[in-house]
């Protein structure tokens, strides 16, 4: 049965979507990612859609769902590599990707993940340093 491979890069999961995402494949991907996040303790998920020349509302929903599930599991999702023609079409379609952050490429996506982790840990430092009564 077809599966989309999920790679591990330190504590980030990397998925590259190369084929048309139909129902079964999308569901399996969602399941696989959720399982792998828990199994590896990953804090970030990067979905590379560079190879997708079409993103319709189904694919959009799938990406949004993945982002939501990941967030519940304390991992952040970043979608990278959206093609200009796809972006222009999505704007025309009026489709938004709620809860999905985007970056131009994997490198920028990783930097984004690192930066938000930094902010998070600093916020944690500040909280720790504050006195209990405030």
């Amino acid at each position, binding site marked *: 049965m077809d599966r989309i491979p999920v790679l591990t890069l330190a504590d980030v999961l990397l998925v590259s979507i190369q084929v048309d995402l139909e129902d079964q494949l999308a569901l399996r991907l969602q399941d696989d990612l959720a399982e792998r996040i828990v199994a590896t303790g990953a804090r970030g998920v990067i979905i590379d859609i560079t190879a997708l020349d*079409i993103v319709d509302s189904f694919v959009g929903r799938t990406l949004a769902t993945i982002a939501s599930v990941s967030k519940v599991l304390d991992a952040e999702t970043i979608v990278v590599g959206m093609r200009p023609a796809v972006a222009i079409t999505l704007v025309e379609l009026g489709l938004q990707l709620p809860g999905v952050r985007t970056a131009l490429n994997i490198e920028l996506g990783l930097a984004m993940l690192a930066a938000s982790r930094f902010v998070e840990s600093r916020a944690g430092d500040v909280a720790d340093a504050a006195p209990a009564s405030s």
Partner: protein
Amino acid sequence: MTTPVANTSASIGAVEVQEIAGDDDVVRVRQLVRAQAVAATRLSLVDQTKLVTAASELARNTLLHGGGGRAEVQIVTNGRRKGVRIVFTDSGPGIPDLDLAFTDGYTTKGGLGLGLSGARRLMDEFDLQTAPGQGTTVTAVKWER
């Protein structure tokens, strides 16, 4: 509600048909539409993307809301430019409330349900024929610029 499909367009080339009964048919519709656009028209990449995306939305609608049906793809011309006409028919329950159907976010199947209004925005001409209990036919055309 709809932009009537101009009767001044003439068809050239054969009508390519794709039955829609399952998900992989939605993929086939996409591939069929793209193949026709690339082979027979000078649609730009962005316009091709819009066309194929609209076809994908409409095909999915036919499958999920119409219980399956068929897609027809044909090259058309208005004398000066060429275009791609896509027609989706199903014999499902029909759409009882058109206003609601075209509102962004309308859905009876869950999810974002942007099928119709989104597809209309992507295409140059768009026509919808439907009646409760009598199925639905969507016709849309994308023209070269």
